[in-house]
């Protein structure tokens, strides 16, 4: 017995876009769904980072001296440089989205690549920072040998637990972002994006901007505490 064709929904007025997924009625619905989905995912990230940031604040209020002293151990130059690097990367990312919307294939790839470059710069600077901190004895646990102010050393170690885990999680998100950027570059090079379909680049942008914003919180919290401490 031959298969009986199942009638689908009536055909689209325009030609079926290659990237329209079949459970969506049209590209507009698909775009709205994807964008909403990314915003919702970002809300989970807010809760994720927010959880550890709240814990950080609880201890900051309890141990202001130790927190100020620990922040002094940070390298503000590297942190500041990284902040600038990330902000620029957000600019290039926004430009990439714009170029995708305009259908400028090479410019899109170029801006995505620039974003990747700045992102990688961030990770490189962070690696140097981590290496230096480790050798200063500031990694928690058995490698924690920093003892300039013995009375506050335990709480400086507590601060460092936050520093390493929070920046570590952030760096992990950057690495994932870098991978996604490469994928976007490949798709962009292939000519997938144009005025009627640029959603993936846009939501890539949302993700990247979010990772940037997380850093904008981490930098002042972990590097720029001003306070009194024991000499």
């Amino acid at each position, binding site marked *: 017995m031959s298969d*009986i064709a199942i009638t689908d929904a009536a055909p689209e007025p325009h030609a079926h876009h290659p990237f329209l997924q079949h*459970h969506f009625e049209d590209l507009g619905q698909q775009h709205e*769904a994807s964008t909403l989905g990314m915003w919702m995912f970002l809300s*989970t990230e807010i809760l994720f980072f927010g959880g550890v940031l709240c814990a950080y604040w609880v201890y900051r209020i309890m141990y202001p001296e130790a927190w100020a002293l620990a922040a002094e151990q940070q390298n503000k130059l590297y942190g500041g440089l990284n902040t600038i690097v990330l902000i620029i990367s957000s600019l290039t990312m926004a430009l990439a989205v714009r170029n995708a919307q305009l259908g400028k294939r090479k410019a899109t790839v170029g801006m995505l690549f620039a974003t990747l470059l700045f992102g990688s710069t961030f990770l490189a600077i962070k690696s140097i920072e981590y290496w230096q901190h480790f050798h200063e004895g500031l990694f928690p*646990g*058995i490698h924690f040998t920093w003892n300039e102010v013995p009375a506050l050393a335990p709480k400086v170690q507590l601060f460092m637990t936050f520093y390493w885990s929070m920046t570590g999680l952030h760096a992990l998100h950057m690495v994932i972002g870098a991978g996604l950027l490469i994928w976007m570059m490949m798709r962009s090079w292939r000519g997938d994006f144009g005025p009627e379909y640029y959603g993936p680049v846009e939501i890539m942008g949302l993700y990247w901007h979010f990772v940037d914003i997380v850093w904008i919180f981490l930098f002042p919290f972990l590097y720029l505490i001003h306070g009194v401490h024991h000499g």
Partner: protein
Amino acid sequence: MSSVTLHDVRFVEPEGTRNYITHDYGALSWLLTKDHKRIAILYLFSITALFILGGFFAVAMRIELLTPEGDLLTSDTYNKFFTLHGIVMIFFFLIPSIPAVLGNFLLPLMIGAKDLAFPKINLLSWYLYMIAAVMGLYIIITGGVDTGWTFYTPFSTQYSNTHVFGVTFAAFIVGFSSILTGLNFLVTIHRMRAPGMTWFRLPLFVWAMYATSIVQLLATPVLAITLAMLMFERVVHVGIFDPAIGGDPLLFQHMFWFYSHPAVYIMILPAMGVASEVVAAFTRKKIFGYSFVAYSSLAIAFLGFLVWAHHMFVSGISVYSAMIFSFLSYFVAVPSAIKVFNWTATLYRGSVALLTPMLYILGFIGLFTIGGVTGLFLAAIGLDVHVTDTYFVVAHFHYVMVGGAVMAYMAGLHYWWPKITGRMYPEWWARLAALLIFAGFNLTFFPQFVLGYLGMPRRYHAYAPEFQVLNVMSTAGASVLAAGYVLPLIYLLWSLWYGRPAGPNPWGAVGLEWATSSPPPMENFHETPVVTWDAYDYPAMMKAMGETQNV
């Protein structure tokens, strides 16, 4: 495009139409499916298997507790068993159950969509669940974990000699399964409703899934970061909960319960959604106070985020803090009470059919009421000091989770079984199982309220001899309960081959899922529906269908 309205619901199945089960054959067509219905079936198998595993731990514990001495299992083994019972049942059974099985299957059908918004992410959710489950199984086999499902520090971070890292990592992964399901549902409900399906025409099950998904989305990440910090401390041997460097074990409790209290609403809100559907279908009436029930789901979701420290009344929070959380806990009880009253009122002047799904739901209403009011006891802080950390709490949460959520899950499974499989189950065996479960459940857990008030602490391997009689009663009940759970496993499986074929709408219910064939075709509807009728518009449907439906 043309539309299918209620008036066209006299159904003629096109000959040779394939449904989602027969659409494709082969294991890969299931393991790589993007169809929400097939993914729901994948989940059905997984969570049933995990339920049996969790049940095994429970049976072992109840047998041990027949005698006051710890003579069947060693202390360490018993401690691992109650830990694993909690972890498996909560993370791998209760939290996914209704959303991942019934929600996945029904949500697109109920709103007139072809699939969820992100089918591939839906499949990813299942794979994350399976990866976590396999990790969990491996950990169980290689020694288990003995911290309690609550992982309190410093015991879990610095004292336990078991696979704490592994299990928390597995919980971390299965949490993402939950988050992605919630995300998928939220976007689907927002963006994929059929033309004419306005918010207040949605079935209450959809409202319940919406509220559940908000909680899944926003609460679970906090668990994720809490477990991440716990894992950090296990590996590095210092961490943010460590008193030696100025950390506070109570911080763990706050962070943990910030998720784990909303988690209980993830478990009960879908159950309430099922209750609304079943009550409506088996009274052939719109649920009394539809909008109140819809809003109460949202209220429960929101208020559920504000009460976490009611798990910490004796932990060391301030008196004023305790009072605030007590007050808010009473507040969150109000919307639940609203639902119970509304379901009851729906019965008035309805056409009440006491078929299996309805029996389960009436049982649910009764047992959830008892579980819910004992929550009021716990919220009274002066009383909580005595009963917290005793079997009173154990009884309370089993009433709401088992007497509540599991009963509703069983109700939903039976109600939608014809839609999912195209078959009817044997009604009398199903009723027998429902009654056994109801009776067995009460015999198991009601004595535990008394045990708790008498002072028997929870998580006790051995207990004072005067507690034995009540423990024996409880174990006797557990055997009846277990028998009750075994029956559906058998007859539901039996029905797949020998059950009477169900038509598209064996119950004569109103809802888009009943306007397509049983089992549904791959794309759910042959034509996209255009909705012009209210939710539960029984008078209109009945007029349209004449007397052609048989129940």
